């Protein structure tokens, strides 16, 4: 089992949780360690997405979208993804402030946006972006989602 809270500067990262059942009861404390490979993978994917949008590379940005998010975007815009994604008002994200990963889901908070990612066989993909927080613990209001 890996449970970690890593503070790097003001970036607090909670690692992906994996539980080795055989060790759960006997080595709960000893097994708690630091493992942030997933955190880095999630942050890297989100960074690459925003970098692709910033450089007007629609194809590269679309390659990092989750399949359902991509098809939702194409359907709602009535255009191919690589064109539609660049027409969305995607803000400049800036540096990632906090990444949290639980199982196959991740969230990256930037100064300018909050993104939700999901893990597929092909790697981490953007599930929702341009997300604004809502009051009363309701789901984020995301302009692009699947």
């Amino acid at each position, binding site marked *: 089992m890996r449970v970690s809270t890593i503070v790097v500067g003001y970036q607090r990262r909670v690692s992906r949780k994996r*539980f080795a059942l055989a060790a759960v009861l006997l080595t709960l404390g000893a097994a708690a360690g630091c493992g942030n490979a997933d955190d880095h993978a999630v942050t890297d994917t989100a960074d690459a997405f925003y970098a692709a949008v910033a450089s007007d590379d629609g194809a590269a940005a679309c390659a990092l979208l989750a399949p359902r998010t991509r098809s939702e975007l194409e359907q709602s815009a009535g255009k191919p993804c690589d064109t539609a994604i660049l027409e969305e008002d995607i803000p400049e994200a800036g540096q990632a402030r906090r990444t949290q990963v639980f199982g196959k889901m991740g969230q990256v908070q930037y100064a300018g946006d909050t993104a939700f990612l999901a893990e597929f066989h092909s790697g981490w993909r953007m599930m929702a972006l341009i997300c604004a927080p809502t009051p009363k613990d309701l789901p984020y209001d995301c302009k692009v989602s699947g």
Partner: protein
Amino acid sequence: MSRVRTFVHDSSLSLFFGGMFLLALVGQAFAGMHEYNAGQRAQGLGEISLGVYVTSADFAVDVTENWQSEYLQFLLFMLATVWFVQKGSPESKQLDHIGRENDKQQKLGEYVEEESPRWAKAGGLRTQIFSSSLPLMMGVIFLVSWLTQSIAGWAAYNETRLEQMQDPLRWADYLLAADFWSRSLQNWQSELLAVGSMAVLSIYLRQRGSSESKPVGEPHESTGVSS
């Protein structure tokens, strides 16, 4: 009889339940993986292998929420039967034996026997610890299982929250969340019902040959008698 056959004969109850436990755990792993992947497919998310599933928070919380309640059940039953009795139940001790009982009844002090355990003969703190060692061990397993449930449940719950595009909770906040208490209480109520109904039903019903039952011909009023 060979040593192996003797061991199997003398430990058949433990071996039976150990084997059944492993089979059920493997079955739960397969069923749980298929359930998890069905949910992933429905949401257009990635599926996982059996190896990934059995090391996931989902599997861990489903396993440990049941473990903690089982050990809590036996812990409570063990302690409650020191002070509470049920007339006619083989699960109860004699009605006039309420409490921790005296040294003669417990074969302690001057009443220890040659074959008594070393810590029962030792006296002092060691005998005090040994006198409660069974609920102590059950209590430790319960607490560790419950703690593990809280951590695994927290991770699994946060995965669901992220799927729903909500912020994850801190672990301390999860301890106050409905999900944690729903998982705990739904198991506790069923265990309490099962052990309570066993104590009552065994007054009037029998299973010939079982140590958990009174002899078939034993009167309903007989308390603390088992086959």
